[in-house]
């Protein structure tokens, strides 16, 4: 049964991701299954089998192999899509850097899931943020609609000759991947107008024009030049994103920025978040505003290239800023807190109180009460003009469960053989 196009329908974040690939007319889907992304490649496998998508689907033997096949195919001249999560992203890590170094554009969807050990299936952002230096660009989505739209924007940006870098679209496992909400499927011919055919000038292998790609570079000067070119290409993606987003808004009516400002107009304290829990952050802002507190939310969307200007414009002059990292770098704290703080430091009117909160690790829920506490602590820090954190959002009740579990796990086994 073919889907009616251009109308909204209920779909999970995973299916929305599959639709992104389908609408982008991808040629090749090298795949390897891993919870919570598997539904994406299952959907694509069906569409390829039934001819709904004119693409070749191949199961590889690992994410390391999958990413190599993906990069090699895109280097040969076809548009490639794949998806992974958590341990899979880490297993492909070596190859992420190679694909970016080959200046090969493709879109990889990462469905965020916390990293082992201990192994878990629940979402947090340590996996995708670990890849922030790989050369892949990164767009993090809050809604299932944004997943689909960001994949189309992703190809447009990645394949622009001013960029030519691969791109990760990230969505939270479970909270988006298995959550259904209304998603509008853009008109395919409109998409083809938005997304030109993939014809990279520096790539391709053919008999009449042999080339060597991924060659060894043994002199430091040459290596510095090539790596710096990647950096400049990534920086270009800021402007290219704005151009693409403007045209996307014109064609499909949905506008996306490098960041999203929610009720920041007169906010003195700003909560900074990314991905799907930003929705909960917006609700918390509404609740606080209802009590007369001037607060707002800044949602980080384009993580690489890092939108320094947009972050500083949104946060300068505020009394206090609270960054809620759903990740934890052991021995340091929240990763995005470091990046926000670094961006703000040169601004003369930077907020005096930078507050670091760590929440939602391993998919842990962040309750309204925890948001209340966060805003209260942030307000106090703002008054005292004193930065605080990293503070773990982990309640007394959470800890009572923990104590109980530790007790059970440590009851010595009676050794009298019964």
């Amino acid at each position, binding site marked *: 049964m073919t889907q009616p196009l251009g109308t909204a329908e209920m779909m999970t974040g995973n299916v929305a991701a599959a639709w992104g690939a389908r609408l982008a007319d991808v040629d090749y889907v090298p795949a390897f299954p891993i919870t919570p992304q598997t539904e994406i490649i299952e959907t694509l496998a069906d569409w390829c089998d039934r001819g709904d998508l004119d693409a*070749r689907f191949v199961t590889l033997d690992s994410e390391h*192999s999958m990413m*190599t096949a993906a990069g090699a195919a895109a*280097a040969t001249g*076809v548009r490639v899509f794949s998806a992974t999560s958590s341990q899979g992203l880490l297993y492909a890590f070596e190859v992420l850097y190679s694909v970016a170094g080959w200046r090969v554009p493709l879109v990889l969807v990462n469905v965020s899931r916390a990293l082992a050990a201990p192994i878990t299936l629940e979402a947090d952002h340590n996996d995708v943020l670990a890849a922030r230096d790989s050369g892949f660009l990164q767009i993090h989505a809050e809604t299932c609609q944004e997943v689909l739209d960001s994949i189309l924007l992703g190809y447009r940006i990645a394949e622009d000759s001013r960029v030519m870098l691969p791109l990760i679209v990230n969505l939270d496992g479970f909270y988006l991947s298995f959550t259904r909400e209304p998603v509008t499927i853009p008109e395919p011919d409109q998409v083809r107008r938005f997304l030109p055919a993939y014809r990279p000038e520096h790539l391709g292998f*053919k008999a009449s024009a042999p080339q060597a790609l991924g060659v*060894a570079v043994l002199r430091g000067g040459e290596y510095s030049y090539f790596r710096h070119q990647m950096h400049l290409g990534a920086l270009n993606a800021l402007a290219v994103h704005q151009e693409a987003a403007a045209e996307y808004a014109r064609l499909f009516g949905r506008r996306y920025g490098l960041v999203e400002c929610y009720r920041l107009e007169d906010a003195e304290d700003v909560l900074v978040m990314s991905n799907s829990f930003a929705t909960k952050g917006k609700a918390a802002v509404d609740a606080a505003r209802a009590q007369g507190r001037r607060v707002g939310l800044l949602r980080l969307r384009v993580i690489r290239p890092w939108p320094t200007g947009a972050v500083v414009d949104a946060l300068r002059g505020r009394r206090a800023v609270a960054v809620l990292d759903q990740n934890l770098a052991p021995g340091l704290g929240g990763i995005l807190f470091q990046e926000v703080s670094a961006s703000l430091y040169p601004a003369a009117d930077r907020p005096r109180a930078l507050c670091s909160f760590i929440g939602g690790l391993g998919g842990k829920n962040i309750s309204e009460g925890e948001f209340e506490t966060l805003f209260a602590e942030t307000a106090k820090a703002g008054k005292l003009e004193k930065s605080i954190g990293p503070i773990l959002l982990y309640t007394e009740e959470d800890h009572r469960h923990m104590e109980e579990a530790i007790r059970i796990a440590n009851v010595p086994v009676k050794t009298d053989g019964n």
Partner: protein
Amino acid sequence: MWQRETYKKIKQLPREEYITPGTSLCAGCGGLEALRLAAKVLGEKVIFVNAAGCMTLLAVYPFTPLAGSWLYTTMGSAPAGAQGVRDALDILMKKGRLPRHEDLKVIVLGGDGSTYDMALSSTSAAIHRRLDFYYYCYDNEAYGNTGVQLSGATPFGASTSTSHATPSHPAAAISEKKDIFEIWRAHRPPYIATISPRHPLDLAEKFARAARYDGPKLFLALAACPTGWGYDPAVTPEVAKLAVETGMWPLKEAINGEVTHTYIPKRRPVEGYLRLQGRFRHLFEPTRQEDVLRHIQQTVDAYWERVGA
């Protein structure tokens, strides 16, 4: 008896060079010797998908010695890279975005380090997927590019920089060389062959025969290594000949798993082969290690008994 149909006389070997001089590989490299001969049969409509190893230094910016194309991927997943290239070429041709005459043979180029160890999984998967590609392994029986360390291909009794002869390990390497031919053959690919540059017509014939098959065509090339095995490059011919004549490097082929030995050696004693190489000197100096020498000879004898030759 195995008959050559295409390459019967030495002068039939193509005169064109598809790997130009000017590479940075060691003088007297047995691996390059075999690759150059293979390239003559494979032609220039090729792409080498390379795994980390000595030959990664064939293409060093801004130079390439290859008439064909090249993609270095990683040490562990070149076969997956080959899958990507092959699929992309097929898709481009099917969708009319690449004319047929632009097609390329996809050739994985890896040393024994990647082939026997790190890339085992990706190779097995590529064979399992019936990928239409060549796999060319230059086997110099150690991790050569990093200075000759023990690999899955290092023969019993060989000294490497991580398996020296010591009081606790007088024989040096105590692991047996993996039988990668049999590991591959267990997948029943259409074509597998072992080759040696010292038998150029045997080598060329096997590449000609392999071209008839769609799917995996896997080659194990003896790569006598002056640097790694400890002998003067000029002795490469004698070392490489004896590797075959002693039966330590059998020349054979397997079509859909059916094995045929393409050359039956007179089976000279292994000692003459071992004695030429620095990596086996500890078996003779300061004292002869009779048990180790006997073990190596018996292993070879047992192999040929099973073969019935």
